[in-house]
């Protein structure tokens, strides 16, 4: 029973504290407002401020309109697509029917493409990010022969567009018998020069060498140092590169187009494009435009979820990196 006598008193104290805190905040806000009033903008600054706001608003619209169009389009029937305004609903809303049809069209090949895409994105995205993190850490914190060369080569590779080497890669993979297997899509995307470069720069600025030396003096192995000290410091960079890599693999079109031969192995990018191009094939009797649009909408949902989910790590990571060294 003694606990019950203590708790009301404790509660009232907490209440008091909260009230005080609220008062403090109010005071601070009033002060800030006054400060803002003192800091009056000149006429020119005000014009600039307006102008910037307008430019930003235009950019927001520019980015959102295609997305809105996609959302509205996915609720329409094939004929509704061409009989209704692009940025509003048609008379008939068939959103759920479209989703159902997208997943069952052509013997349900769409879910298969979705799974393929997830497999390729996770395997190649995570794989390439891990490799880039290992390598970036090594280049940034260790001195070894050929280190500068490696840096130069990485830079050089960044300037080569992936499409240029795809066909030669195909010829190599063909001789190795890897064509038309998931490896043909995953292996080439494990090398990510852009990610590597980012990791090198990030590791150079965020890992104090003295910290690693201290750990070494304490007798930690390289492996322990990397996972216990290096990796936590690198995690914001890791998440950044991972996001870039995931988006890159998810949206890659040309490599799977060249490397894969069976529609069953296609990722969403190539698969949806097959539906799109079917209209110009003489033996095909269907133009599933509404399903292509619904399929495209579904295809970006996992990426959005990924962004929202990883963003958390990103922010906390950045904050963690801000502690004094």
């Amino acid at each position, binding site marked *: 029973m003694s606990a019950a006598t203590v708790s009301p008193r404790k509660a009232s104290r907490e209440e008091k504290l909260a009230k005080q805190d609220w008062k403090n905040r109010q005071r601070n806000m009033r002060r800030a407002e006054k400060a803002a009033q003192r800091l009056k903008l000149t006429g020119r600054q005000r014009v600039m401020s307006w102008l910037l706001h307008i430019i930003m608003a235009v950019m927001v619209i520019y980015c959102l309109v295609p997305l809105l169009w996609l959302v509205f389009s996915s609720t329409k029937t094939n004929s509704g697509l061409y009989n209704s305004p692009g940025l509003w609903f048609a008379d008939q809303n068939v959103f759920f029917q479209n989703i159902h049809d997208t997943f069952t069209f052509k013997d349900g090949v769409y879910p298969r493409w979705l799974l393929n895409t997830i497999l390729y994105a996770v395997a190649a995205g995570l794989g390439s990010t891990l490799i880039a993190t290992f390598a970036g850490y090594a280049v940034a914190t260790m001195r070894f022969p050929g280190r500068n060369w490696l840096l130069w080569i990485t830079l050089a590779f960044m300037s080569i567009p992936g499409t240029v080497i795809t066909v030669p890669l195909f010829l190599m993979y*063909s*001789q190795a018998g890897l064509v038309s297997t998931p490896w043909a899509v995953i292996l080439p995307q494990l090398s990510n020069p852009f990610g590597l470069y980012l990791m090198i720069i990030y590791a150079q600025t965020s890992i104090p060498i003295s910290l690693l030396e201290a750990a070494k003096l304490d007798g930690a192995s390289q492996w322990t140092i990397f996972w216990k000290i290096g990796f936590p410091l690198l995690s914001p960079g890791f998440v950044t590169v991972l996001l870039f890599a995931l988006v890159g693999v998810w949206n890659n079109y040309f490599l799977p*187009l060249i490397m894969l031969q069976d529609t069953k192995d296609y990722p969403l990018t190539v698969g949806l494009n097959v539906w*799109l191009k079917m209209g110009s*094939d003489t033996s095909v009797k269907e133009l599933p435009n509404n399903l292509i649009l619904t399929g495209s909408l579904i295809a970006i949902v996992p990426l959005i979820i990924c962004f929202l989910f990883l963003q958390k790590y990103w922010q906390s990571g950045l904050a963690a990196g801000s502690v004094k060294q």
Partner: protein
Amino acid sequence: MSTKMKAIVAAASAAAMALTLGACGSGNGNGGAAGAKTAVSYSDVEAALKSDKDINLTMWAWSYDTMKPSVEAFEKKYPHIKVDFVSTGASADHYTKVQNAIKAKKGLPDIIQLEYDALPQYAVQGALVNLAGDGIDENIGKLYNDAAWKNVHVGDGLYGIPQDQAPVAAWYRTDILKQYGIEIPTTWDEYEQAGIKLHKADPTKYLGFIDTSGNRQFIQMLHAADATPWTVDGLKDITLNLTNDKSKKVAEFTQRLIDEGVLAAVPSGTDEFNRAFADGKYASWIDGSWRGGLFATGNPELKGKLAAALPPSWGSSADDVQVGEAGGSLLSVTTTADTKEKQAAALAFINWVNSDPESIDAFQTVGGSLFCAAKSFQSDSKYAEVDDAYFGQKVNEIYFKAAEKINTNWSILPYNNQMDSDFKDIVVPQMKEGGDISSALAKFQDKLKTYGTEQGFNVTAK
């Protein structure tokens, strides 16, 4: 992005073609004369079906869903021949994969689907088996439409078995024509008059359009007008004649129709175009017969408002109409099938799929109807008399008539891809009001000659 991608793919295939043609010159080519001596005969083909020896074939095609039931029916009937059937996606992707496999000299299946337009390109590369053996022409040739059978030949060689055909037909918006008191035109002169009348009555409307997204519509007009812009002899000799009187007439007439507001010059297949068509901006559509099947799914709201007809005649009356082609595909046996046994089984298989009544029936039940090139389809009244629910017409009857009227005086260039991209670069920009298609054709011809000569063909231009 997508045009850039296409350019890359085109450049890649062009480069590959240059290489293989070079290889042909040094005597490494397959098929051709050497292949003809050992070609499978008709008795080999018959034996392949009767034999009980297991044979495994591989096949790539883009019209997988359409063909799957036929392939399954064949395997059931002839269980010793097994077909590993891979769907390669859309035809554009299919060609990329075929070309890359040829370049890698590895991975090409025994059987591939090709369009008539693309066949010569692969035949001259030596990737296909010449099937012109003893008794083949007599026993198999008679099973197919004459124009289609001609189309699977390159030079003297037979490089495939026709599957479907795309005779050009026309579809008219009968509701619009009725509103303005216009009859369905049967000749191009009538078409012009009707178009002028419609455009005057409502300047937002056009009787038709000329497709600027590629060569298909314009080249098929040359085909229908018997303009013979080029002839191909054997595998190497090409004569270009894009400046002859008939070609000039088609070019100038098309230009006039654009200037008069009869035809709108637009790329088809865009969102804008689809909307305009649904809105009734264009009162007719002239394209391969397969287009008819696409209306039902693409424009269900136009049900009962569209009617199919023969395309307008270039002559003075409907009776002398000649028809062009816009697509159609075939199955070819590749040099991957390196034994006589395999080639015979492959030929037996593709011939069965493309002409056996059981297979033809299967083609008609899957996703609408496939316009087969086999006579067992085109001369069977049970297919002609099917009432099409969408058009409220016996449309097959019209398409069959169009197929009969296909102009067989026609060759396909062995570098059709390049022709298409040059057409888009040189001729399409002139397809506009006040343009000059006729003089663009002369420049187009120069470009075709230069390219063909570079590729090792003997090109003469008249």
